[in-house]
């Protein structure tokens, strides 16, 4: 362990926390704690990006870290909180598959993700070899969460958590994409979240509920 610099250790730590948060979100049954977990994940992501920025002295990574913090740890959770309150949907999160099964599938996924990322991690010249696997694992866990949740808001949280995983991959594994791209991604996420918010109201207006099981009418079978 002594050969590994502190920054790398920190990044690995943060990455692990992000993975932990992903698992926590998968296991979480209530909406508001789910959003909080998402906010924590965003904050840790920002911190991780910050560490990378300090280590590599890339100016745009500071911006990135700040943006992430503002957007993912503050703005989006705040929007989601507001939505939940406005829509009055503080019910339990219903899962299509029960939570323990989901967790087992999640662990399998982590194994798969690490294995897939292994050959790449070995190539990595960056300080944080394992982060790519962790990023992939969190993306997949978020994906799993989207599959298993039957309400709209948890699904969106899953979607945003997936973005977090991607962001982790972008910053920690590769030390950041070009600034323009990062800005664009951030903008898209923001706009997307706003559009989703608008959607929630409309879905609620039309279906009297945010249960996406109402959204199963368009089909062929």
């Amino acid at each position, binding site marked *: 362990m002594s050969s590994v610099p502190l920054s790398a250790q920190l990044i690995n730590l943060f990455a692990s926390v992000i993975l932990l948060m992903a698992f926590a979100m998968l296991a979480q049954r209530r909406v508001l704690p789910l959003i909080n977990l998402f906010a924590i994940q965003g904050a840790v992501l920002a911190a991780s990006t910050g560490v990378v920025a300090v280590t590599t002295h*890339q100016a745009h990574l500071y911006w990135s870290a700040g943006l992430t913090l503002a957007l993912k740890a503050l703005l989006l959770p705040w929007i989601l909180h507001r939505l939940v309150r406005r829509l009055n949907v503080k019910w339990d999160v219903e899962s299509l598959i029960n939570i323990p099964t989901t967790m087992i599938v999640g662990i399998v996924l982590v194994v798969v993700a690490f294995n897939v990322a292994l050959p*790449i991690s070995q190539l990595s010249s960056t300080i944080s070899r394992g982060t*790519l696997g962790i990023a992939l694992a969190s993306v997949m866990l978020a994906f799993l969460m989207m599959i298993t949740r039957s309400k709209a808001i948890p699904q969106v949280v899953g979607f945003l958590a997936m973005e977090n995983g991607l962001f982790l991959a972008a910053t920690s594994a*590769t030390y950041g994409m070009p600034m323009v791209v990062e800005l664009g991604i951030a903008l898209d996420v923001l706009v997307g979240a706003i559009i989703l918010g608008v959607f929630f109201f409309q879905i609620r207006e039309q279906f009297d509920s945010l249960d996406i099981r109402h959204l199963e009418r368009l089909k*062929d079978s």
Partner: protein
Amino acid sequence: MDTFVLMLAIPLVSGMLLTVVGEREWAPNLNIVASLGTFLSSALLTGEIIADGPRMAFGEMFFIDSLNVFLVTLTAFVGLTTSIFSGPYMKNEQEHGRLTKGRMRLYKSMFQLFMFTMLAALTTNNLGILWVAMEAATLTTVLLVSLYRTPASLEAAWKYFILCGVGIAQALFGTILLYFAAERVLGETGNALLWTRLVDVKGQLEPTVMALAFIFLLVGYGTKVGLAPLHNWLPDAHAEGPTPVSAVLSGLLLNVALYAILRCKVLADGALPGGFAGNLMMGFGLLTLVMAAFFLSRQKDIKRMFAYSSIEHMGLITFAFGMGGVVANFAGLLHMTMHSLTKSAIFFAVGHATQKTGTQIMENIRGLLRINPVIGWGLMLGTLAILGMPPFGVFASEFMILTHAMKHHPWATPVLLLALGVAFASIFGRVQSMVFGETHAKRLPHAPAITPVFLHLAIVLALGLYIPPYLTRWFHEAAKMIG
């Protein structure tokens, strides 16, 4: 002013402008004028590219070569005709009470912004920006799909958003992996996502990373293309959105997503000479083609059916590009062009037909020839064209794809032909009973815009019989570039 800048600026500015003035009486005309401007500048740009060769813009941010310039022209052209078509169509919708003024405004501005994202995605040199533009295109079209705010349209838009959002997230992961691979060769500069730079070093990119990256990119953008089994959003979105939106979704968005895959395939091919990317694409293409063909036979909604037809054709095109080589790429590009033109023409005709009869359920649509011969013939000829009947151009490209497949992948030919046969049986039977027969339908307050339908079909017909040499050269160059 630079034609390229003009081309990008017109839709962006007019889109912004239309958010403000979109409900005015002359707004549809503004929409058309803007599209015309875009088309003219793209045509000029094409001329420049043909004369001077590939060029960059905004430093190295944008890059226009023979591959994307033809798609740019196609996009601008279909955009123009769609805007012409949507004038009376949307007015009719408004008068039927399906849309409010605000929505009309939203429609027009989102339409222009959508065009902007398409053009940006096509012309950008940066794979990151490409991703951003694709995502932006999703966002604009989500708003367009949900324009009616009916339960069904909301459902469709929701599915579209979630599925494509997830898909595109995977594409982002692929892009990150690509960057990861490129960074090792090009260094930590901002250039590691520039396609022109990447192409130069494509042989040195790390194969394992590139394989992973391509899988993510293919699954990601493939969702947008409508490759099976990632296609599930597509029929819903096509069926529930306004018809002009279906036309541009089928005619443009799918193309652009496929274009994104193509750009990535060039890089993957460089890093993985074993035809890894091509085989994956061929597999997806065949699967898509066959599944879509069988889906077709059980459709009840006319727009849904043609949406599946789009999936089927995207499968065929993906298969063609998967085969690789100049001839197959040429055929793929040709098929892309033909499909865009034909499918959008069909959607125009379908739009009028559904408006006239007031339903999208095919069983309730009868006797289009008697309601309005022009719409009836438009739908009939368009359908025959899309089914690959000569002398329409779709046949030319299908012929090339099939013959190439017979030469290099004979095992695939029976599958291709089976799918095409099933698709023919399914679509034609339904369209025939809609076009022919008796009916009692009323007249519409606004005369339909028929020119776009027949303009498209005329081009498709002409190209089926004669492909001008400059177009051939142009396609050839593009095909060579894809490799």
